[in-house]
């Protein structure tokens, strides 16, 4: 291409009057068919769907693990599982749900939706996007290979030392867990970088920071938090691996190490992480609930600020997981107060959502049921958290089933329910078909009733003193019936999840056609086809308000946003880069084409980790060199990406 190619002002075009723009873009942006295309694609929509499918698979696997150990716990002194089996099941269940399901599902939705809601052609760093998925998949396989071979993690997802040290845990279980988590952390970090850069640079012209969709606020906040939180746990796991394999003494007492160092490092990550796995889901609700109330969200600015405040405050409460460790009460009371104060930004969200329903006109579609149910479950999970925030009360509540109730209300209530609702909402956009409404109602009520039946009794068994992480219990403790009800409820809930998956499958096959905008939503993703073309938008949209597609009908609003006429960028794969605050167009971004390099790099990285865990040092070196080579190929400056002097006259 000539140098003048790289300095031009793109023209404005009309995609309706000139459909050949779309034709040209389709040829530029679509991925190759077959296996080659599958391995090389950098299309955010394909990557997003992969994340979603993989994460749902882990949800099902983790759920089955739970059903098995709930059978063990349904009655005193049962012998369905040995203690060792139980310990591996509950630990793997935690690891699967919290790491392999909870964040990736949200990353998947965000990956698919962000460029569409932001009016962009792709994420800012498409190759990095592909890399984050491949690493996630390979780390999941790495972790599960250990479990399948009989040495899954067995010290809980939180993996406290000294029980996790080699002296007490001699097999390879913890080595696989440790290195697998370090690998997984790389996927999260790389994905986080992508989200933050996209947020700052890839918004449609005119989408200033106060017009950014709520799903974006939730996800960018969570990912910015992850950038600072994930290194803590990666470091902790790496130090543990060194203690176990290189004889270091970070955590082991005889060598001068400190068990509490593990807890600090783990929870400095762990607490922000639990906000990272709910804030994007809350953003999805803030995004979609208003559609079913036929009016914009109440308090956009308050909710956006509350989202950020929750994440920031979330870095200051980690010691509340360590209230019983004997730290000085003066220090602990600071964290107790902070843990109670952090309820405030959450309350902002709850009242904003209720106000939106109150002042709107509800549309009784399945997504609405899930979002309304979510508000109640959020509140229930929130109050049990508030209770554990009080230090002396927590000295009774901690490490009992009360906390198990709390964490499931917040995780299932604030992650799973919104995710299922979001699936009903966005499935038509992903596939062009609507999900079945009648089955959706059955799905909702089975999940809602089953969930509460299963998990509400845990508050009571916790208050009656049932400790966590026990493989069985004696009769005469007052817990028998509560546990039986919990087990039954768990199975009912699982049936609800099954109904959801059935609905997904049959709707995919023979759902009713959805059209571009079946829900009459205001945001940009509904301005393109269902499913969207590979290039998302034939011309770049211009945005003049928070609700572009509602402008012509909202009172006191004028239609100023444009989706049918805009910048034409079709000299290769191109997108427009815009400024971080006001989103004024800045630069033409040359986007990369499909490449196998991210796949190869992820594979080489996995080879490195396999070598490390098996102590096959030659394999590890091979993996390291392969990773380096792949990185070099990736980063080699390319003219067609505008990276070299050739791309500019002297």
């Amino acid at each position, binding site marked *: 291409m000539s140098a003048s190619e790289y300095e031009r002002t793109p023209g404005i075009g009309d995609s309706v009057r000139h459909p050949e723009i779309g034709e040209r873009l389709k040829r530029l942006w679509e991925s190759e068919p077959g296996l080659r295309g599958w391995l090389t694609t950098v299309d955010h929509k394909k990557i997003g769907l992969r994340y979603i499918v993989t994460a749902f698979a882990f949800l099902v696997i983790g759920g089955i693990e739970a059903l098995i150990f709930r059978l063990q716990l349904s009655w005193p002194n049962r012998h369905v599982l040995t203690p060792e089996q139980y310990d591996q099941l509950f630990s793997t269940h935690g690891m699967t749900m919290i790491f392999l399901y909870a964040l990736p599902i949200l990353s998947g939705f965000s990956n698919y939706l962000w460029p569409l809601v932001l009016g962009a052609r792709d994420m800012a760093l498409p190759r990095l996007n592909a890399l984050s998925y491949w690493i996630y998949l390979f780390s999941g396989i790495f972790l599960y290979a250990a479990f399948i071979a009989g040495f899954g993690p067995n010290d809980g997802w939180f993996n*406290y030392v000294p029980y996790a040290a080699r002296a007490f845990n001699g097999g390879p279980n913890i080595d696989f867990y440790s290195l697998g988590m370090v690998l997984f952390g790389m996927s999260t970090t790389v994905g986080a970088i992508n989200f933050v850069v996209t947020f700052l640079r890839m918004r449609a012209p005119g989408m200033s920071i106060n017009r950014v969709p709520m799903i974006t606020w939730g996800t960018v906040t969570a990912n910015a938090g992850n950038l600072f939180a994930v290194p803590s746990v990666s470091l902790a796991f790496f130090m543990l691996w060194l203690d176990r394999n290189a004889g270091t003494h970070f955590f082991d007492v005889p060598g001068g190490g400190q068990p509490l160092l593990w807890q600090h490092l783990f929870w400095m990550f762990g607490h922000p992480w639990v906000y990272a796995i709910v804030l994007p889901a809350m953003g999805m609700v803030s995004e979609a609930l208003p559609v079913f109330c036929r009016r914009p969200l109440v*308090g956009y600015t308050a909710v956006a600020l509350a989202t950020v405040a929750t994440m920031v405050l979330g870095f200051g409460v980690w010691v509340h997981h360590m209230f019983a460790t004997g730290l000085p009460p003066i220090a602990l009371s600071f964290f107790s107060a902070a843990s109670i104060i952090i309820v405030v930004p959450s309350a902002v969200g709850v009242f904003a959502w209720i106000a939106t329903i109150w002042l709107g006109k509800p549309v009784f579609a399945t997504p609405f049921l899930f979002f309304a149910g979510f508000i109640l479950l959020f509140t229930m999970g929130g109050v049990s958290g508030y209770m554990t925030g009080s230090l002396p009360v927590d000295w*009774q509540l901690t490490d009992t089933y009360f906390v198990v109730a709390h964490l499931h209300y917040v995780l299932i209530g604030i992650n799973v329910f919104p995710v299922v609702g979001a699936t009903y909402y966005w499935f038509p956009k992903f596939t062009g078909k609507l999900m079945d409404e009648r089955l959706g109602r059955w799905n909702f009520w089975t999940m809602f009733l089953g969930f509460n039946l299963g998990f509400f009794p845990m508050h009571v068994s916790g208050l009656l003193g049932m400790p966590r992480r026990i493989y069985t219990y004696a009769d005469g403790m007052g817990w028998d019936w509560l546990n039986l009800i919990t087990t039954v409820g768990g199975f009912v809930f699982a049936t609800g999840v099954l109904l959801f998956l059935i609905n997904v499958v049959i709707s995919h096959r023979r759902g009713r056609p959805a059209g571009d905008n079946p829900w009459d939503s205001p945001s940009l993703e509904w301005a393109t086809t269902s499913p969207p073309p590979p290039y998302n938008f034939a011309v770049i949209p211009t945005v003049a308000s928070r609700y572009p597609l509602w402008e012509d009908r909202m009172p006191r609003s004028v239609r100023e946003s444009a989706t049918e006429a805009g910048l034409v960028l079709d000299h290769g794969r191109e997108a427009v880069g815009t400024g971080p605050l006001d989103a004024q167009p800045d630069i033409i971004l040359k986007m990369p084409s499909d490449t196998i390099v991210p796949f190869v790099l992820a594979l080489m990285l996995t080879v490195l980790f396999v070598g490390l865990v098996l102590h096959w040092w030659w394999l590890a070196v091979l993996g390291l060199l392969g990773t380096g080579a792949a990185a070099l190929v990736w980063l080699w400056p390319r003219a067609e990406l505008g990276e070299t002097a050739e791309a500019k006259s002297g």
Partner: protein
Amino acid sequence: MRLPRALGGWGVAITGLAGDARASQPLNYLVSHGLQNDVTLPLTKALIAVSLTVVLIIGLLIVAAILRRPGLQPVAGARLEVGPEGGGLSWIWIGVGLSSLVLLASIAWTVAVLGQTVHPPSKPKTRIEVTAHQWWWEVRYVDENPALDFATADEIHIPAGEPVAFKLIGGDVIHSFWVPLLGGKTDLIPGLTNESWLQADTPGTYRGQCAEYCGAQHAHMAFLVVAQSPQDFRRWRDSQLQSPAAPQGEAAQGAQLFTMHCGSCHSVRGTDAGGVLGPDLSHLMQRQSLAAATLPNDPAHLSQWVSDPQAIKPGAYMQKPELTAAELAAIRA
């Protein structure tokens, strides 16, 4: 969903009021027999009440918000009316404002309770050191006069009506010392010594439980705290310090077998058995339970436990001793 939740709450409250929960719900801390829990329990109940109220109010608001106006049925692709942006901010201000008041009050009360639970009301006269092991509790009574020190395991006697100081010494992995009816839990962390205290209001037997996952038999790592009147406590303490009477006949043969098979791990004061790897078994038959409060202490359960510990606590470090039935009977005697 508010009805089941209310029922649950009532159920809990009723349980708390229904007399001696110690028997039917040994770890229920909505009942208090100890000074720490006496002070904490009102706060706990208040937080429960606040929580239930909040859930009730929010639930009602959601239902009212939904049912307030006739809703719309979804029709794919239909263009429905759209309301204006703006309005409704007062919901947030009022809701957050009221919540903040409740939260601040909760913090204030929390701090007040803390002030009363961190330190005992008077200087404790009885001092006990507890070291936690996988999966039993080593208990050591210390006195100013070292001749009065002694060890026992899994059952802790304390005088009722006065504070008792505990030194919680980390052993192998992290465990947690918890007697719900008396007070909150404190961890035992290897390399560290934590301090805690308990005061039982009235004499009785209170169950304790390890409250930090510590491996395969975490589920079977309980203990008993027996609060006695000061006179009874002194009598118990004196009897613990005595050596056992010299055994006769079958019991003598049993004593020899005991030293041979069990003495390398277990101690009995006043005999040749001096092992420190397992629980001290001095005056074992005075205890209410066996195997960290897993089994009642009677000859049948004792035989069952000794002959095959792995059947009851698989993974425990007590090996199956090679004993014939006759030898077992001799040890029992």
